[in-house]
């Protein structure tokens, strides 16, 4: 089995790449910084990756590079069975409201460009007879809340797209795994005040891996977020309007 990971050098992507390598997957790492790619490839090799780890430059801000990067991954690995997307950016609501350019960039990267990448991955997975596309969305996309109105909107759109992709192509052999992590301690959330149920990259990656191996459609990570978000979705609107949460 072979996996291409977009942003598999850091945070949850790094943890998931390690777990996939330990499961015997051939790995291609897609990312922006060649030096980071090399260091992560060495890490996976030392941890016993079955085959040489491919490293392929790819930037979420440059959609023109998506097709060639996935072609290169397919070429290096022989075939693609799994594509994982952990690439994303985060910014707080206040920051985004104050800076229109930052806001445009976040919406573009987390929604438009992520979907454009998934489209390229979909085409290649289906052409190979099927496979799994595992994309990290967020619990923030499950219901609008004050502190993540913009980020949550991008993630809600992404979740919606992934949901539709699953409806449309499941019969053709495409499995779509939408991972919805809560707050995870990574570089993306560094410096933020952790809310309850904050988790670490490793257990979140493990939950995602379980979802991939069992073909789950939606994975909450850690699993407690399934219940938490069910409760949040059920909250009466006036309550949500009054709360800062």
């Amino acid at each position, binding site marked *: 089995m072979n996996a291409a990971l977009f942003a598999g050098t850091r*945070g949850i992507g790094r943890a998931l790449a390690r777990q996939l390598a330990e499961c015997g997957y051939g790995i291609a790492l897609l990312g922006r910084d060649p030096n980071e790619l090399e*260091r992560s490839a*060495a*890490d996976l090799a*030392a*941890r016993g990756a079955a085959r040489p780890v491919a490293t392929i430059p790819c930037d979420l801000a440059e959609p023109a590079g998506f097709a060639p990067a996935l072609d290169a991954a397919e070429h290096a690995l022989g075939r693609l069975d799994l594509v994982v997307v952990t690439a994303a950016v985060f910014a707080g609501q206040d920051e985004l409201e104050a800076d229109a350019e930052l806001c445009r960039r976040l919406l573009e990267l987390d929604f438009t460009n992520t979907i454009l990448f998934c489209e390229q991955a979909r085409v290649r997975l289906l052409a190979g007879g099927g496979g799994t596309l595992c994309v990290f969305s967020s619990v923030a996309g499950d219901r609008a809340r004050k502190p993540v109105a913009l980020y949550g909107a991008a993630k809600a759109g992404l979740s919606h797209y992934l949901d539709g992709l699953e409806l449309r192509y499941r019969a053709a052999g495409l499995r779509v795994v939408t991972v919805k992590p809560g707050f995870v301690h990574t570089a993306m959330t560094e410096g933020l005040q952790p809310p309850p149920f904050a988790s670490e990259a490793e257990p979140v990656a493990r939950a995602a891996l379980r979802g991939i191996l069992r073909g789950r459609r939606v994975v909450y990570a850690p699993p407690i977020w399934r219940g938490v978000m069910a409760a949040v979705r059920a909250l009466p609107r006036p309550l949500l309007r009054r709360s800062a949460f």
Partner: protein
Amino acid sequence: MREIHGWGRYPRVAAHEAHDEDLERASREPVLFRGLGRSYGDASLPARAGARVVSTTRADRILAFDPATGVLRAEAGLSLAELDRVFLPRGFAPPVVPGTEFVTLGGMVACDVHGKNHHSAGSFASHVRELRLRVPDGRVLDVSESSEAELFAATTGGMGLTGQILEVEVALKPVPSPWLRAESRAYPNIDALVEGLRETSARVPYTMAWSDSTARGSALGRGVLISGDWAEPVGAAARAWRWRAPLALPLDLPSGLIAPLTTRVFNAAVFAAQRFARPRLVGPRSFFHPLDVLANWNRAYGRRGFVQYQCVVPVDRDTRAVRRLFETLVRMDGASLVTVVKDFGAEGRGLLSFPRPGVTVALDLPMRGAATQALVDQLNDQVAEAGGRIYLAKDALTRREHFQAMEPRLARFNEVRRKWDPNGRLRSALSVRLLGDEP
């Protein structure tokens, strides 16, 4: 900003603890690096309240491993637990293993840790091939025995004060299996225990002793010596081994729980149980880090916390020096829940490295304010007089005068440190307390 502390949970200081996957970037400012925070006292705390420290634990990539030589290079935040998990099943063990797995490579170098095999393998630094170091003038250097040897020597055991450790290259040890054959033997008092360590260490590569700090009179310092070596992969030792996460202690126990009475009962039970233990095959955690079975066991001491105290005293001329430490413990009611005694081999090359030939004693003391300070002062008087020294990774209460009296090597260390960091930019709470740095 939140309160951070070492493993003993004393002292506590408000600090900004940042995490960074990229240590080259994080080290652009001269900020103190902190690993898993397993040094007991103030070694990983900032020089003044409110300052920043950088946790290295997310910089945990293995950068190279050569199965032919066992040489591994990794980012400084890689933990020993991860090293065990990945490499023990493949036949490689860390060359030197301290009492817990939850330490980083960088921390192991900075504290120059030792283990049950000190008499046969030396301390961790003797297996380190090279360090990548950000020195305080901003340069990134690869230092080793052959390149900037003096800086290398000052950095191993230098408590992170000579530069920020970015990468560590160390030789792992090939082992026949992940299992160990262990034996226990009881000794009726501290003199017999020390003699038993000397004898056993002459033939067995891994040795240590648990001692009962509450026993008195003719049983003073009675203990159980545990020795062992890696098992050949036959019979039960041919089984596969898998790393397991420890259980967690979910809450603080009350601060007064670990008191002289409970300590006496616990130690008597350990002594009784170990005394009749047969030779056995054990896993690496049970042999090397039995306390790791329970993550956060430090919470058993409650919010007041505890201090560790570890010293080494030479015994070649004065074989009674260890006995006198135990006499002081009994006299001052210094009941230590877990007391470890171990013989050390030759001194390493680290300018401030702790181990030196002699016998080391490690104590866990519930923090009881002035009484605990008085006990540590008294022990330090004796250690200084015996020509011994203390272990900085464990220390929280030693006074600067005592430290200076024990460390004739300090002048040389200070000289190297001043050469690389003339403005004293890299500091910690420990360096303020013991080296006289500005807070």
